[in-house]
C-alpha cells in the first residue's frame, strides 16, 4: 500500500474572465496599485533587451483572444531571483523575472518586453540554453499548459540543451524556438503557440 498523503487540489479552467483577478485593468477595473505586467525590465536592468511576441492558435487555427501567459526567467547572469537558486552569481535588484501578458481581445497578440536570460545549469551541471519558462491559461484549458521559449540565434546552445534533446522529432523541437526578427532596429522574437494539430507545441508534465 502506498503511503497516504494529501492530494493536490484539482485544477479548474481559469475561464474567460481571468483578467479580473490577475490583470484587472484589462477587465476594466481600475485602482490596483501594483500588478505584474508584460514589461519585466526597468531602465537599470542589466542585460540585452528583447521583445518576445506571438499568437496562440486553437485546433481550428483560430486565435485564442481570452488567454493569459506567464513567464518566469533567470536574469542576464543566469540566476533566478529565488532562495532555491544557490548559485554564486549576482542578483539584479531591478529584475524579478516574472511577467504576465494577455492575448489581446481583438488581435490575439501577446508580448513581453524583457531581457535575454543567461545560461542556467541543468541537471548534472549540463548547461541549459537561455529560455523563458511559460505557463498558459485560458477558457477551455482545464489545467495550465507549461512549456519553454528558446531563442533561434542560440543554435549551438540549443543543440546541446538537455530539455530540447528529449524531443526526438526536429520539427517538434522547433515548436519551442522563437524566431529572431528585427523591427525598427529592435530585436523581436516571434513565438506562436499551437494548442493542437500538425504544429502542436510541445507541452510539459513536470
Amino acid at each position, binding site marked *: 500500500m502506498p503511503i497516504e498523503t*494529501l492530494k493536490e487540489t484539482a485544477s479548474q479552467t481559469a475561464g474567460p*474572465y481571468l*483578467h479580473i*483577478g*490577475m490583470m484587472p485593468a484589462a477587465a476594466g477595473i481600475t485602482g490596483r496599485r501594483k500588478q505584474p505586467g508584460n514589461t519585466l525590465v526597468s531602465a537599470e536592468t542589466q542585460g540585452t533587451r528583447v521583445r518576445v511576441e506571438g499568437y496562440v492558435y486553437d*485546433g481550428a487555427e483560430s486565435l485564442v483572444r481570452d488567454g493569459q501567459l506567464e513567464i518566469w526567467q533567470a536574469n542576464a547572469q543566469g540566476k533566478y531571483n529565488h532562495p532555491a537558486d544557490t548559485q554564486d552569481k549576482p542578483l539584479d535588484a531591478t529584475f524579478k523575472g516574472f511577467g504576465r501578458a494577455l492575448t489581446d481581445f481583438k488581435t490575439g497578440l501577446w508580448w513581453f518586453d524583457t531581457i535575454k536570460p543567461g545560461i542556467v545549469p541543468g541537471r548534472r551541471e549540463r548547461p*541549459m540554453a537561455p529560455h523563458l*519558462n511559460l505557463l498558459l491559461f485560458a477558457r477551455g484549458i482545464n489545467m495550465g499548459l507549461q512549456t519553454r521559449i528558446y531563442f533561434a540565434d542560440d543554435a549551438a546552445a540549443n543543440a546541446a540543451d538537455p530539455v530540447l534533446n528529449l524531443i526526438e522529432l526536429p520539427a517538434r523541437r522547433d515548436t519551442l524556438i522563437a524566431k529572431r526578427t528585427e523591427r525598427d532596429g529592435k530585436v523581436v522574437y516571434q513565438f506562436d503557440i499551437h494548442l493542437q494539430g500538425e504544429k502542436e507545441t510541445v507541452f510539459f*508534465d513536470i
Partner: protein
Amino acid sequence: MSNKVTELYIARDRSMHPPAYAPEYKTSVLRSPRKPLLSLQQSLSEITGPVFGHEDLDPLDNDLLHNARVDNDPIGERIVVHGRVLDHDARPVRGALIEVWQANAGGRYRHVNDHYIAALDPNFSGCGRCITDDSGAYFFRTVKPGPYPWRNRINDWRPAHIHFSLFGRAFVTRLITQMYFEGDPLLPLCPIYNAIPDAGARARLVAPLDTAQTIALDALAYRFDIVLRGTRQTFFENSPGSF
C-alpha cells in the same frame, strides 16, 4: 565536492485533475493538446518561482466588500472565505499569493467581455488578493457570487463559484482552480466541475459552511483548504545548481 540536499517536488497525480480534452465542456475540444506531454525532470527553472510579499498588495485587497466601494456596500449575502494552504504532508505553505475573482451576487462579472443581462453592482469588482500567514491560513470577505448561464449546451448554468489562482514556493506548484459552495444543486449538472474524474477530488473543491467562523449578525463563513504539491528531499553529491 559538497553534499547538497535539494528539495524536488513530488510528481503531479494527473488522475486528480480534469483531462485537457473534456468534450462536455465544448471549448476544451479545440483547446486541448492531443500529443503526449513531455515528462521533464525538475531543474532550477522549475523549483524556483516568483516570490510575493505584503508590499505587493493593496490594503483592501482581501476585502471585496470595500475594495470597489463607491457609495455603499455591495448587494448580496455577506460571506467570509477562509482556509489553509498546505502541501501534501499537511505542512503549511507560507507566503502563498492567492488571487481571487468572481461574479457579483447576480452572476455578472465586471469584465468588458461579459454581457449577461444581470446588472452590474457599482460597489463591487469581484477582484481580490491575499497572502497566507505562517500557518498557511488566509481569509477574505466578499458577497456570495450568483450562478449564471453560459454558452455551452443551450441550458448550461455555472454553479456559484470563486476562482482561485495560487503561487506556492515554486513555478511547478502554480495552480488555478475554482471553489464551489456546499449544497449547490447546479454542481451535478456542471460539465466543468464534472470534468474532474475523481469524486473525492471534486468534493474537495466544495467549501462547507463553517458556522464556527460565522460573524454573528454580519456574515456567513465558508472554509476552503487548498493543497499544493510538496517537496521531498534528495541527496546529491554535486556542486550547487546541479541535481
